[in-house]
């Protein structure tokens, strides 16, 4: 029996400056079937779905809706013909109530042209019941747990009467009971002939829900399979199965004594649309060692290094032991005084003052060493910045060029220069090569190697498996805020790493 194709993507290519996010990918949504989309972080799943749902309008290739070519310029256009995406990061307004969120922008009107609240809440309740939402539709959104907000997002999609419904890791914030309700809902939708795309990292969900599974890797389509013709191991192998080619050759240097011991790091912090959570994270790094932290999006990698750097203050528990001293920094200053440096993931938001020049950014974290007669010695500052510009090969007109004008790789080098000036003994690098070109990447790999050779302890977070495997002496994997495994260099395989990072339940 052939399933009928509802929506088809043909030869989709999407380019970002310097990167091809999708390269000629085909994808099909079948009526009344679930096609699960799997792949590592950065495989191109979200990009593909954003094209299908009208978020990105410029791409190469074509979309066919029931065989007829179509091109969405906005999400509204996609929704009009019944293609809706339930996003992972929530697009709801915290100050409005549940029904107002569901009908935002298309509120039912009374004859006077005013909002017909009775009708709105009545309809909202219907959809909410289907997704298993237990609260009243008058509840203000910000009073709900993240999982419940996710249900509201799904109810909103139902209210749009979608024919194609795209779920982006919907169960990552749902409780067990909510998950079961969602699965039953999906079964129902299938019977109604709705075509469903389901992005997930949870392998056990595939056999429960999916009819097809499509694997993406590095922007390429690896294949579409019927779920009952394949196995979890096979899928994992397809997800990672790239040829092993070493990015760079790591030098061996002797490991020293333990530089940083992390004991039972725990964190619970509720933000507006997600919860930061760590549970009893423990590990140690030695001088001269590079420790990799691998995990999928939302596993808590960034939270680990941020907590070590004192960014979560009183919300964090646990203890660090550095050189016989036991404490947990409450501010970045305390962490820096203990010899810790953090190179944050988002250099534009967290790393640099973009309007300031390279020299000022370079000295920002260590300005007290730049003083003469109590004032900043601009001459020495520029000389110092010039030194780092040469050493790290920062490409710029001069050290007076504003940091905002530099390319990503060069910006990252300025952030590195700033932290290296504090002479840290423990470096925490959060996605140090994200979004930078291959040359700059290689330079940063060499720098990391050199820092370790100098006897510093380095912790690297990376979503790119080949990268983290090439760089690290050991890798720990995180999942849902917990350490799930630890691998020595001779035990590194992509499959093992991915398996250890997949969430179980």
């Amino acid at each position, binding site marked *: 029996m052939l399933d009928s194709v509802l929506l088809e993507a043909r030869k989709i290519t999407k380019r970002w400056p310097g990167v091809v996010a999708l390269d000629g990918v085909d994808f099909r949504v079948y009526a009344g079937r679930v096609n699960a989309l799997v792949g590592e972080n950065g495989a191109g799943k979200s990009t593909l779905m954003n094209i299908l749902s009208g978020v990105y309008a410029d791409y190469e290739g074509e979309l066919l809706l029931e065989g007829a070519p179509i091109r969405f310029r906005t999400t509204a256009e996609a929704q009009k013909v019944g293609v809706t995406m339930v996003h992972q990061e929530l697009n709801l307004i915290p100050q409005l109530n549940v029904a107002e969120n569901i009908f935002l922008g298309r509120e039912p009107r009374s004859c006077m042209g005013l909002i017909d609240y009775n009708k709105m809440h009545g309809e909202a309740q219907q959809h909410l019941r289907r997704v298993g939402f237990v609260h009243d539709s008058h509840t203000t959104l910000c009073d709900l747990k993240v999982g419940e907000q996710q249900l509201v997002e799904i109810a909103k999609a139902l209210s749009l009467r979608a024919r194609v419904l795209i779920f982006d890791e919907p169960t990552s914030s749902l409780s067990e009971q909510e998950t079961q309700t969602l699965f039953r809902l999906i079964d129902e939708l299938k019977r109604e002939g709705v075509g469903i795309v389901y992005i997930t990292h949870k392998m056990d969900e595939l056999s429960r829900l999916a009819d097809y599974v499509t694997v993406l890797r590095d922007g390429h389509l690896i294949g579409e399979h019927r779920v009952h013709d394949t196995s979890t191991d096979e899928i994992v192998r397809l997800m990672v199965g790239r040829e092993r080619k070493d990015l760079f050759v790591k030098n061996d240097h002797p490991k020293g004594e333990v530089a940083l011991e992390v004991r039972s790091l725990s964190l619970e912090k509720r933000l507006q649309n997600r919860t930061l959570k760590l549970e009893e994270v423990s590990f140690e790094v030695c001088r001269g060692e590079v420790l990799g932290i691998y995990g999928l999006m939302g596993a808590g990698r960034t939270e680990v290094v941020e907590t070590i750097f004192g960014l979560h203050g009183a919300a964090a528990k646990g203890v660090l032991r550095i050189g016989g001293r036991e404490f947990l920094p409450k501010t970045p200053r305390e962490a*820096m005084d203990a010899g810790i440096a953090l190179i944050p993931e988002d250099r534009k938001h967290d790393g640099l*003052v973009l309007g*300031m020049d390279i020299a000022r950014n370079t000295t*920002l974290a260590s300005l007290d060493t730049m003083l003469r007669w109590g004032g*900043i010695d601009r001459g020495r500052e520029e000389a110092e910045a010039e030194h780092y510009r040469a050493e790290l090969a920062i490409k710029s007109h001069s050290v*007076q060029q504003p940091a905002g004008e530099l390319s990503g790789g060069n910006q990252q080098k300025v952030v590195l220069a700033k932290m290296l000036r504090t002479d840290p003994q423990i470096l925490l690098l959060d996605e140090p090569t994200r979004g930078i070109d291959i040359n700059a990447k290689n330079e940063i790999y060499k720098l990391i190697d050199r820092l370790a050779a100098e006897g510093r302890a380095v912790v690297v977070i990376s979503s790119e498996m080949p990268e983290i495997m090439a760089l690290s002496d050991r890798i720990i994997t995180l999942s849902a805020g917990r350490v799930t495994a630890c691998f020595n260099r001779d035990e590194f395989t992509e499959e093992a790493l991915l398996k250890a990072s997949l969430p179980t339940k």
Partner: protein
Amino acid sequence: MLKTQILRIDRSTLRPLVALVVMVLALSLLSESFFTSDNIFNVMRQVSVNLCISVGMTLVILTGGIDLSVGSILALSGAVSAGLIKSGLQFAGINLHVGFTFFGVVVVALLIGGLLGWFNGQMVTRFKVPPFIATLGMLTIARGMTMLYTNGHPITGLGAQFEYLGTGWFCGIPMPVLVAVLVVLLFALFMRKAPWGRYIYAIGGNERASRLSGIDVNRVKCFVYTVAGVLSAVAALIVTARLDSAQPNAGTGYELDSIAAVVIGGTSLNGGRGSVWGTVIGALIIGVLNNGLVLMNVSPFWQQVIKGVVILLAVIMDRMNAKEA
């Protein structure tokens, strides 16, 4: 290298500077009495009060904040210093009377300004009250306290030393102008050379990156509001001395002139970009504009309209400048 540095400083203040020069030239042609030494000193004396306040305002705005309470802080520290110099402190219960010297009064005035500013800073940093609201609260509180202290009556007759501060000359420069110049030089140097000056720019430019660089953002923010308070008190001493009296409604609306001076001087209300020198030019533009319009017998109502238009033009120019950059 030195040359490019000078050019870079000028870039943001160049337009206001050109505007000021054009205005001065135009007014010199239009009015015979404008470019006379009497009138120039007159303008500078008038500008000195706004300038002191605006230097503090510049620091606050550079961090991305705002201070609406400067006028009320001015009124309260002016009233208290006038009261102290005139009648000292009376402790009725124990029959004690403490007199104050002129310098004692100066110290007390600056302390009051600093304390109220520090309070603003605590509101903003510790209790996370938005700066607009925190200082709006202080605007009302300090005004009310001024009324309580003065019972709504002016305090007059403050003695020779006070009079000298207001109307005296030192080395051929009027005292208020001298004070303002010292304030400007001190803070221009501070912003350029002191680490905390650099931190003020950094926080306005990117608060999170500043925090991640180990800067104690809250302390620096608290500091700028304290400075704004202290400089309001400095302005209060000048105003009180010049009138030889403390008026309970002194300083009303000064926050607006001050914000206008900062904005016209090219400092971004988003923080991170601008300078004390820009503010000097901004304050001079407002002063020259006021003075020129009076000399040309423009009705006070039109003066307000024109001032408003100038502020809008300045911001529009700043926006276009930001787009280019």
